[in-house]
């Protein structure tokens, strides 16, 4: 999926995360993570972000995540929502989840 504009999802309330994704003028994925549990879970959160982007075929983008202790499944949901919002009317392929 192509990132063509800024997409944002989530909140900064407890157990949530706010995710913003925008086009990257350089190639590749750039992740800025800020987390209340960075020390223990920083790497795990990064890998959830990376895997979610890979599953959505996102190759280029700047991702900013401000995490307030969200579960992995919440991070995944917020990244998916942000990507779809940043795409040009992209559709999520639920069948691929089967």
């Amino acid at each position, binding site marked *: 999926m192509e990132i063509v504009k800024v997409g944002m999802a989530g909140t900064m309330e407890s*157990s949530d995360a706010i995710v913003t994704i925008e086009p990257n003028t350089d190639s590749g994925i750039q992740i800025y993570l800020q987390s209340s549990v960075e020390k223990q879970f920083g790497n795990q959160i990064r890998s959830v972000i990376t895997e979610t982007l890979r599953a959505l075929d996102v190759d280029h983008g700047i991702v900013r995540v401000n995490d307030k202790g969200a*579960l992995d499944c919440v991070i*995944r*949901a917020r990244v998916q*929502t942000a990507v779809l*919002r940043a795409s040009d009317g992209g559709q999520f392929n639920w069948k691929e*989840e*089967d």
Partner: protein
Amino acid sequence: MGKLRRTMMYVPGNNPGMIKDAHIFGSDSIMFDLEDSVSVKEKDAARFLVYNALKTIDYEGVETVVRVNGLDTPYGKEDFEAIVRAKPNIIRLPKTEKPEDVLEADKLISKIEDEAGIPSGTVKLMAAIESALGIINSYEIAKASPRLVAIAIGAEDFVTDMKTTRSLDGVEILVARSQVLLAARAAGIYALDTVFSDVNDEEGFINEVKLAKQLGFDGKSVINPRQIEPVHQIYTPTQNEIEKSIRVLEAIEEAERKGSGVISLDGKMIDGPIVDRARRVIDLAIVTGVYVEEEGEGIA
């Protein structure tokens, strides 16, 4: 015994803090809402969130229900596509007005179950009836599909449709409640009562739950963990009821052992409905922990 559905707790679908702990408050079911509690601009976010939560979080056997958006809205179809794949126990259809609404949902769920390799009939349906037309059609709705396990009355929209507002004694929804119950009982499915939205009015809430139980509802939708315990208490059999029921069941056992056809207790004849009621009381007493079955006694 059948599944207990005394309390079904609403959880707004776009609130991770509530979603992650929804099962720890002891309600019989939890209902994740993608409909009225989610603004139009957050429909996509709530759908992804509930989908991922159901796929990942262990709700420890608590029944999971998702209220989707109607298939007549721009969000309904995709809600089904996502949620069926996440396999909650039940999908709750909002604003059901006619049996075709249930059939359409049933067909769509079947198609998705098939595509996703989920055994057919895994995801059950429940229909909320929230309008005059829906109440009129409630029996047709209740028996529309074997997938349908319950119908519920949604009073907030119903009273608006009736050009009135809700009152504490509920006179304006008495007929509708009764109609929903009749339909559910005739179709052999569950009947669930509407929400009581003033969390701070405990007395009003308790009165309403008592009324719903007396009418015959299986349970109530709740909007706050504080409302769970009072409902369970009201639905818990009293010691007196339990003792009476035990005597009824003992009389039956004795009659069966003797091979006698007519059963009587204290000079009164015991027939089918009395036995059914006694069984329900004991089942409920066991589940709610107020009665412990003794080894070898074998009541059932």
